């Protein structure tokens, strides 16, 4: 009995370890969400009050800075977690994740740039949410299953942002800010604390 139970546990662990990236930290989500919320607040209270041409440029700068800090924090906290778990950070699974994540993101980013050039920046908030959601769903099979539902949430918010164009920034903040923070907190308590 004992041996069979141990065997099944070992099998399960090995299947997960070899096919999933489990060093994704809840803190990554909290960090990224906080960045996005700050970026959106700056946009709402400062950038939106500038003349349109200046505002568009500032908005792009704001987005690039937020993206850079959010990704850096995400990598940093996950790297820390992988060290705590005594696991190699860069693995075949991580490379698969990055490929599956960045392919849709790249397509969405390119489309956004084209639309901004055509002076249709309003629609971009929703599109980035939708493409980000698709990227998450694409990635979720290689990590925690919650990421799948986060992806669906982002897509739904993206459609709301496109339908209610004037409130795009609100849905964007909900999706990239609040959702990340909420999911991050849940994942932190569900997985990170348990591993310590």
């Amino acid at each position, binding site marked *: 009995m004992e041996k069979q139970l141990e065997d*099944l546990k070992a*099998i399960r662990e*090995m299947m997960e*370890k070899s*096919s999933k990236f489990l060093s994704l930290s809840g803190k990554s989500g909290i960090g990224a969400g906080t960045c996005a919320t700050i970026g959106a607040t700056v946009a709402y209270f400062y950038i939106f009050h500038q003349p349109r041409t200046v505002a568009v440029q500032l908005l792009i700068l704001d987005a690039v800075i937020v993206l850079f800090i959010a990704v850096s924090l995400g990598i940093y906290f996950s790297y820390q977690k992988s060290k705590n778990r005594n696991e190699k950070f860069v693995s075949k699974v991580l490379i698969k994740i990055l490929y599956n994540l960045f392919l849709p993101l790249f397509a969405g980013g390119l489309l956004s740039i084209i639309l901004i050039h055509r002076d249709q920046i309003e629609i971009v908030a929703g599109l980035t949410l939708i493409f980000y959601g698709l990227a998450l769903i694409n990635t979720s099979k290689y990590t925690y299953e919650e990421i799948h539902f986060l992806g669906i949430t982002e897509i739904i918010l993206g459609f709301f942002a496109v339908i209610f164009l004037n409130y795009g920034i609100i849905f964007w903040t909900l999706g990239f800010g609040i959702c990340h923070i909420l999911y991050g907190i849940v994942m932190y308590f569900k997985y990170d604390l348990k591993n310590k």
Partner: protein
Amino acid sequence: MTNIISNLNKAFDSRIRLGIMSVLMVNDAVDFNNLKELLELTDGNLASHIKALESFNYIESKKQFIGKKPNTSYVITELGQQSFKQHLNALEKLIT
């Protein structure tokens, strides 16, 4: 009871072989070094268990060259998948 125990596959009696099969069940193809790292084994130890599983036709090796370096990766066979699933079912029945 004897019936259930006979469903347990002797080929999977070792934890290392269970590990190899588990990894190959959920991955398309895994090369030797990757397996070694995942299972935290030495070359010789891993090689002997791989040989055993190959002799049962549960796994297959694929040799290829990456640049000039030879690289051997392993995939699970149809028979291997069936046998491993049977073994898993037998294990589960035993503990319930």
